[in-house]
């Protein structure tokens, strides 16, 4: 039997997709994730593959255990579903991007040492940015650039932490919970940024709603769940995470209640659900970690189902604001039904998969966390029901009829991808035992007890009553809500503009001063050409206004030098081996 790294299967698939014609490309998009899933299942536990990178430093490219196999399985399943949804995408770049993105996520999941993790981490950041940039609207391009800057920042923090670990001679991935020290904090911060932990959540809610329709499904499924994987691998049982998770969850719920853009509303619920999982990782008991993994998988399934349904609404109506939508349920009944499956799943209605994982996390909280945690998590669940099961469908599908006619039909491939997700949401909800054998710990847990079911239903009845009373207050308003991205979009932006302006005007003033001093010496120099140049300066051709074209050459030179240096260093490393 040949064992092969599942991530590389997808990366090779990406290479093929880059050169093959449209038909064959579609086949690759379906077959590559299937093959990767196959390899995830046949890889034996404890298998390790490493390559020497430089002397004394081995890259452990593949290390298989229960946790990595579990997340590998999740990512392969959603890659397949997402690729079915996006199979008609015309742009070659998007198909290639999805496979590279998924491949790099699997790379992180199966990495056995810090440096391999970091390399795939960066590949993940770069390949995911294309899904935002490909939307091509000015907002999307600006959001995409902000997205990539935030991710490079998180990657750099991670790298700093890794350098500290490497100096200490520890290159293999290990559990760092409660160790303290620079490496601990840097790595925790780097991973937290990717997990959209508040206050670093703004990149997600800023960029995801601007992504392409197909791309948002991948974005919603991968980056944050990879970060969750890293938290589970490196920081299980870190108490700080309990409270951070609870705060995140409440934060997401509050913003979702205010939001008008349908995809941004769902993005805030990514933050909220990740908060749920982060809290579970912080609790760190066997039941909590099982619940965290299961909820991550659930979240991948129902959140992408919701994003796919909302994507179908945007695709067919061309509208993305609650204030512009309403009364379209008759036009797309199938989408409404599939959406409601996803909504019930995320809100944890009994018989859907969210119920099982939420019950596990809430039980774990009741057993081993401060009492308030369980209560607050229940409240968050109620808030989720309120915005995803009631507010969003009411104002998007039902509500006042805005007389919208669909521009096109929902294609069959989109429907089948959504149906596949919905099927899995129900399947794992009805037969939770299906996943038991893959989970991390052998903890017998029975979610369907009278106590769980009745209290969940009671919470949901309360939510419905609250919705009926506050209905007029919940309607979308044509506004945006400021989030922590404000700090780098307004004050920091103004500050950078100020610095650039001051520098340019100082430079210009110095130029004029220098020129007039040279002019004094002109009779001595007698250089005609130079004098002509001075004349230009005096007549104000060098204005102190910033013009980026002036800077192509100097900046380009610097980048070129940096590249040369990198090539030199790497050549040196390789030839010395």
């Amino acid at each position, binding site marked *: 039997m040949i064992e092969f790294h599942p991530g590389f299967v997808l990366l090779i698939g990406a290479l093929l997709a880059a050169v093959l014609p449209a038909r064959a490309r579609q086949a690759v998009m379906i077959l590559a994730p299937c093959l990767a899933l196959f390899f995830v299942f046949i890889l034996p536990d404890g298998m390790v593959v490493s390559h020497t990178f430089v002397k004394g430093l081995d890259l452990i490219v593949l290390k298989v255990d229960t946790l990595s196999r579990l997340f590998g399985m999740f990512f392969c399943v959603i890659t397949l579903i997402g690729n079915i949804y996006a199979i008609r995408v015309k742009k070659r770049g998007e198909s290639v991007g999805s496979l590279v993105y998924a491949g790099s996520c699997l790379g992180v999941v199966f990495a056995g040492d810090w440096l391999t993790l970091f390399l795939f981490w960066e590949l993940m950041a770069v390949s995911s940015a294309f899904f935002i940039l490909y939307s091509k609207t000015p907002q999307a391009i600006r959001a995409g650039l902000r997205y990539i800057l935030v991710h490079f920042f998180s990657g750099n923090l991670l790298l700093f932490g890794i350098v500290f670990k490497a100096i200490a001679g520890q290159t293999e991935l290990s559990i760092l919970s409660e160790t303290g020290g620079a490496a601990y904090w840097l790595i925790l911060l780097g991973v937290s940024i990717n997990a959209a932990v508040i206050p670093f959540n703004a990149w997600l809610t800023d960029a995801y709603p601007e992504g392409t329709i197909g791309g948002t499904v991948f974005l919603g499924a991968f980056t944050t769940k990879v970060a969750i994987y890293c938290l589970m691998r490196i920081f299980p049982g870190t108490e700080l995470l309990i409270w951070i998770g609870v705060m995140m969850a409440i934060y997401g719920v509050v913003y979702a209640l*205010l939001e008008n853009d349908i995809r941004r509303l769902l993005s805030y619920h990514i933050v909220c659900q990740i908060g749920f999982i982060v809290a579970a990782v912080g609790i760190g008991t066997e039941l909590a970690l099982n619940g965290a993994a299961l909820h991550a998988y659930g979240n991948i399934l129902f959140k992408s189902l919701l994003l796919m349904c909302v994507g179908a609404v945007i695709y067919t109506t061309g509208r993305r604001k609650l204030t512009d939508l309403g009364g379209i349920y008759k036009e797309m009944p199938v989408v409404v039904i599939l959406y409601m499956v996803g909504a019930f799943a995320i809100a944890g209605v009994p018989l859907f998969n969210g119920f099982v994982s939420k019950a596990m996390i809430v039980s774990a909280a009741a057993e081993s966390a401060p009492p308030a945690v369980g209560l607050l998590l229940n409240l968050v669940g109620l808030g989720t029901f309120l915005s995803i099961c009631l507010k969003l469908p009411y104002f998007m599908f039902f509500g006042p009829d805005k007389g919208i006619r669909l521009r096109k039909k929902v294609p069959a491939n989109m429907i089948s991808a959504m149906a596949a997700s919905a099927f899995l949401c129900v399947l794992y909800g009805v037969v939770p035992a299906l996943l038991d054998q893959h989970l991390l710990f052998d903890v017998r847990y029975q979610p369907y007890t009278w*106590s769980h079911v009745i209290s969940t239903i009671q919470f949901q009845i309360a939510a*419905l*009553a609250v919705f009926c009373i*506050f*209905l007029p207050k919940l309607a979308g308003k044509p506004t*945006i*809500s400021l989030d922590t991205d404000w700090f780098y979009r307004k004050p920091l932006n103004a500050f950078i503009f100020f610095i650039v302006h001051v520098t340019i005007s100082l430079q210009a003033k110095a130029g004029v001063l220098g020129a007039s001093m040279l002019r004094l010496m002109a009779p001595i120099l007698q250089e005609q050409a130079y004098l002509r140049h001075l004349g230009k300066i005096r007549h104000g051709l060098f204005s102190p206004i910033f013009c980026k074209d002036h800077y192509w050459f100097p900046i380009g030179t610097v980048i070129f030098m940096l590249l040369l240096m990198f090539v030199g260093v790497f050549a040196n490393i390789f030839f010395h081996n």
Partner: protein
Amino acid sequence: MTAKKGLIICAIAALLTIILEILFVQHKTYDWWHGFIGFAIIFGFLGGSALILVSKLFGKLVQRKENYYDGGDDSDD
């Protein structure tokens, strides 16, 4: 009108679940409220209302016009 209907349905359903709770549920009590009949309904109702009111109040602080970042009207900043 429909809101009223909704509330009546909620009330009936709530009563039903409370009857079921009394009949069948054996609570594991980690804290006192786990054994409190109908606690989820009361806590859910009060908590949910508080959530909406708090978020509306918070909205007053953070909500801006849609063109805020595109050099639009930010005089209320």
